[in-house]
């Protein structure tokens, strides 16, 4: 038996984790997404959802929304580590700045006939989903909502013939009059 002694100290702290949504304003330059995704994987942080698009074309600025999970000290580290990256302008923890508005969009394709088809239509209308495409045997629905709503919708649709899902991930914004740029 090998002795399990090492020259590194043991882990000593146990804290509870929470879900946080971060808005990251960055220069939209080549490799910036790789830097951010690489930072998360390299340092062992979680990414639950990641959304990115250029938001100011003239200034080449993008906004990245990341939903992550960690203890308070890890979340603080994530922010500081992100702010160390040269193309990152600022990082805002939307979970800390007060309840943020969060939405994601999903597209689902369901295939079926008879009762399944009727039930799929009922569910879609109950959730307020839009029908984007229909054939005699299939529908493509669009639903915008919180992550929880989207999850519930997908779960229900699974029972009535869901064959494909595409989701955008979370877009988020703080409530109130103040803007982040």
């Amino acid at each position, binding site marked *: 038996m090998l002795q399990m002694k090492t020259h590194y100290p043991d882990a*000593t702290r146990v804290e509870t984790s929470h879900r946080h949504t971060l808005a990251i304003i960055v*220069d939209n330059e080549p490799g910036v997404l*790789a830097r951010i995704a690489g930072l998360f994987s390299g340092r062992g942080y979680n990414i639950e959802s990641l959304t990115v698009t250029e938001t100011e074309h003239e200034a080449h600025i993008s906004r990245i929304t990341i939903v992550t999970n960690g203890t308070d000290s890890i979340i603080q580290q994530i922010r*500081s580590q992100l*702010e*160390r990256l*040269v193309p990152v302008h600022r990082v805002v923890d939307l979970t800390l700045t007060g309840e943020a508005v969060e939405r994601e969009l999903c597209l689902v394709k369901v295939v079926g006939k008879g009762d399944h088809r009727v039930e799929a239509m009922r569910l879609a209308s109950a959730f307020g989903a839009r029908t984007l495409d229909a054939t005699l045997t299939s529908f493509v629905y669009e639903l915008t909502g919180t992550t929880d709503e989207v999850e519930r919708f997908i779960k229900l649709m699974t029972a009535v013939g869901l064959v494909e899902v595409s989701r955008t991930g979370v877009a988020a914004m703080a409530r109130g009059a103040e803007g982040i740029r």
Partner: protein
Amino acid sequence: MSETMTGAEMVIRALHDQGVEHIFGYPGGAVLPIYDALFHQDKVQHVLVRHEQGAVHAAEGYARSSGKPGVVLVTSGPGATNAITGLADAMMDSIPLVCITGQVPTHLIGTDAFQECDTVGITRHCTKHNYLVKSIEDLPRVLHEAFYVAQNGRPGPVVVDLPKDIQFKTGSYVRPLSNQHKTYRPTVKGDMEHIRAAVELMANAKRPVFYTGGGVVNSGPHAATLLRELVRLTGFPITSTLMGLGAYPASDTQWLGMLGMHGTYEANLAMHECDVMINIGARFDDRITGRLDAFSPFSKRIHVDIDPSSINKTVKVDIPIVGDCAHVLEDMVRLWRQNAHQADKVALKDWWGKIEGWRARNCLGFRNSNETIKPQYAIQRLYELTKDRKTYITTEVGQHQMWAAQYFKFEEPNRWMTSGGHGTMGYGLPAAVGAQLAHPDALVIDIAGEASIQMMLQEMSTALQYNLPIKVFILNNEYMGMVRQWQELLHGGRYSHSYSESLPDFVKLAEAYGGVGIRCDKPGDLDAKILEMINVNRPVIFDCLVDKAENCFPMIPSGKAHNEMLLNDYLGETGADIGSVIDEKGKMLV
């Protein structure tokens, strides 16, 4: 005024405009245009190394000893990948470097072209920032920005990957009015409210200690001057990490020696017992903290650091101050004076009394021998015989590195170059080449181990070519001593592959390179031979045959607290200094 020139010429021009005098490099297909541009000028001197890793370490030694950024030039593919270890080393130890790598022409990127590799991808995690330059219009800005990013905020290595077609393209070069990045602006001035609170806390401290680090050296000589002023004003004890040695003079009475795993008893116990800890530019590395839940249990902590991610990373602090050491120290000194603060004299006297008690145990004591050279003794003699000169010390990694840190006394910053965070064997010889180039008249010594030295040995040839009279002082214990020590402690003394087999004859090796070889195996000959080494004005390899069994103490076994140090076995036998606290094995748990 803009001038028309090729991309390759822009590289050299930008270096010159940045005040760069020396670069370390190795040619290859993807940088030939830059080498051609080098050929046509004499402003920037190119030092040809023998391996790209050597180029980066040489640039690190140059940078750390001079305070200027180090510059490296390597080719694509294998040139770039050979440089990786050096870049990772510079990243860990916050050394400002600009490394220019050649890349295949833009139209071939992504096609697995000859000597193509994804340099920006590979170096993303071991650089502070990197650039792939795809248009000649961007080149002047990127080159200057690279210097700004490397040097400002927490320093680090920056890679500029330059495809060969861009090196050939012609464009207009203007030196930008400012090198600044358009948005990257590190905070240098500390928050006054926090600084005020920190000074207040210091004034009321009963058992304070300064814990300083590499950040003071990064900040520049002015920070070291201010640190000395503040330490003297307050009368507090001071210890430093491996990376911060020299920022405070080791000869001073307030100096407790290095702290951490192989730090002194007094420094570690002061950290354990203190009520106020003032961390200036150190990053609570695990070699310092040991067990986090037992680390300095009674202290309120102040932490000055330019990088917010260093603050509260592993150790929670009470007063964080984000800023540059020199700026914050200046404010601290001013506030202390302005408010006519006085340390609590009575409490401080008590505290020093306790510290003197710890000091009296003489934790660095060792039993010397007339037959074999003790490695500690070798470093002591090296120090005594070189202390009146302008001496720069570099090291490899291992026991010899720790003995150098413990027994060589540094009085000035920038005189000590070692691989701390990455712990790269092979660092010391090329770093000595870089330091000697920056300080041609100084005495530059690489304190080495017989295993480490073989990792970058080829750089002897560089030293010869450029008449750099570096001294390689090998503490030859015929073991990867540090590994052997860990195997004794953790793996029942099973010395799996840690013996240095088939060693070369280092004296002949020195001679084969055209240098001077000296061997010493008797304590009585040591002084004369060290003097011989110092007095030849050529590169020397000094093969110092030392005790093969010696271990490096004091030591905090990992996972233990600062008050659970192991002290030197021999002290137990002599009993003179630590007497009854040592158990029969000579290991001490306080």
